[in-house]
């Protein structure tokens, strides 16, 4: 499977591989996941433009109005329009987990790849460290780090990346190990290709199925973590209109106006579900492709 070959068979193979890359979108769960993802993405990008009121403006309505009062989701204690705040607040819950995951997968994946490629003592040391960190419950680790580093979006990204990196690294290492024994990898090494070339052109493309699935799954976990931290008061800080924070603020008036809490809460839930379903469908397609 030399990626630079130009024989018809090699080209056909590459086209087939590309098609297989999107095959997950044709499964039942993949379609549902993709549909939800597109809907949420539209909401997050276009939403802020459609907000009927400025999201941070105080007193656009009577404080603590229920949805019947002309405001779709009612208003909060300060009389801010909750629907506008909801439309405005979805950006962070998409971007922060994505950034944290990219960072965590880059660092962990690098270590895992290099470990799998070179093997030996360094590899088993890396694997040991991964296992040691994974043994610590992720939420506990997150909370302890946040207790020390304080709260801001950049620390949050950093902390989640630390929690994700060893888990990502373990999966990448495992996937790379099973690819690295193939003849085409051995051949590339014997040809004298550079480490980078072998890792990026031979090993990574052929290990991409499990890695893509686990990336999508860890996006779900990161979304859960980020929104949970905001809900606990350790993530987004007022006056942000982040969905997790909206849920936390709405919790106090749940008995008066449940919609103000439920709508952002379910939006977070739907986003998390989308990535899990996509992870599931990639997983299934990869397994079928091997069978």
């Amino acid at each position: 499977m030399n990626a630079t070959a130009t024989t018809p068979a090699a080209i056909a193979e590459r086209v087939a591989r590309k098609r297989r890359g999107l095959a997950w979108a044709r499964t039942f769960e993949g379609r549902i996941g993709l549909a939800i993802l597109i809907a949420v993405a539209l909401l997050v990008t276009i939403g802020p433009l459609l907000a009927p009121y400025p999201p941070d403006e105080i007193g656009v309505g009577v404080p603590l109005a229920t949805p019947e009062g002309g405001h779709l989701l009612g208003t909060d204690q300060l009389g801010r329009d909750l629907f506008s705040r909801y439309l405005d607040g979805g950006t962070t819950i998409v971007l922060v987990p994505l950034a944290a995951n990219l960072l965590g997968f880059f660092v962990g994946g690098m270590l895992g790849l290099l470990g799998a490629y070179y093997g030996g003592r360094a590899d088993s040391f890396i694997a040991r460290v991964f296992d040691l960190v994974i043994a610590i419950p992720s939420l506990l680790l997150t909370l302890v780090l946040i207790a020390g580093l304080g709260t801001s979006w950049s620390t949050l990204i950093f902390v989640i990346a630390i929690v994700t990196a060893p888990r990502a690294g373990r999966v990448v290492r495992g996937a790379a190990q099973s690819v690295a024994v193939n003849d085409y990898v051995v051949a590339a090494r014997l040809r004298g290709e550079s480490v980078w070339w072998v890792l990026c052109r031979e090993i990574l493309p052929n290990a991409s199925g499990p890695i893509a699935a686990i990336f999508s799954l860890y996006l779900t976990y990161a979304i859960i973590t980020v929104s949970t931290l905001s809900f606990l008061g350790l993530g987004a800080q007022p006056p942000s209109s982040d969905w997790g924070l909206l849920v936390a603020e709405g919790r106090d008036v749940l008995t008066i106006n449940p919609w103000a809490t439920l709508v952002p809460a379910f939006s977070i839930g739907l986003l998390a579900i989308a990535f899990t379903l996509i992870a599931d469908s990639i997983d299934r397609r990869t397994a079928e492709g091997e069978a």
Partner: protein
Amino acid sequence: MKQIGAKTKARSALRYLGSALLTLWVISVLVFAGTNIRPAEDVARQALGRTVTESQLQTFIDENGLDRPLPQRYASWLGDFVQGDWGESAVTGRPVRPAIVPRLWRSLLLALAAALVAVPISVLLGIFMARRRQRRSDVATNVFLAGISALPEFVVGLALTTVFAVSLGWLPVDSTALTFGSASDKVLAYVLPAATLVILVVPYIARVTRAAVSETLQASYTRAAVLRGLQPRIALWDFAVRNAAVPILNAVAINFIYMLGGVIVVENVFGFPGIGQLLVQSIGRADVITVQAAAMTIGAIVILINMSTDGLAVYFTPKLRGRKT
């Protein structure tokens, strides 16, 4: 099968103990580093509030030995902690241990109650799905469970609260009755938090059970049992399910450990006075001593359960005995 000597057994037990202690040590380093990473003055200022004089700060730093080098502070902290001296909270001015212990019991009881409900439900659901593999009801249930498992704890908790406490009014909105309510109030206070945990762990165990049982259902020994004319019930339970016991047991263990983390969030959703609520509140109040003690306690319990389930799995699977892990 080869008989395994007492020596090998003792060695593998020691190996488990060693890796558990190593993990616990790493947790203690992280907890200490995490809570002491900032300069001494910051720590003192956070503990005492904003309106303090320079001399008050200095006294606090002297009293708590915050001017010593970090490794020295770590050593004396760990020494005290291991001996049961968990220190006094600078925020409440009270010793930390009496505040943690009753909360810990409530949290463990909550997790245990949830596990007792969740395990039979999820195993039965998994077996049901395995028997109708690839049929429409199996695929639909599978996708539905995948969706549920992706929900954050607070979303499930708040949804349950809205339905059962706000709309129907059957159950209390929060669990604050645990600290002062009557006995029946106390029991009711467990229902919604436990139900939230149940909903969150059922998908995982059910899907693992489904995968494991559908594999053993197709195994030659199960098919042979059916062909021999054994009752389907016996073929299912004694051949398929029994041989799927280890992955199921593993899933249960993973989820029990997950629940000990999950209680942190669930307790905060319901105002449940457990150790997780204490941990989050203490982080918000910058109560370093309490954060350390609560985090160490949760960490130690997770490691303990991890170790004992590893041991259990070995006990139930003769194949694993004496194998290097």
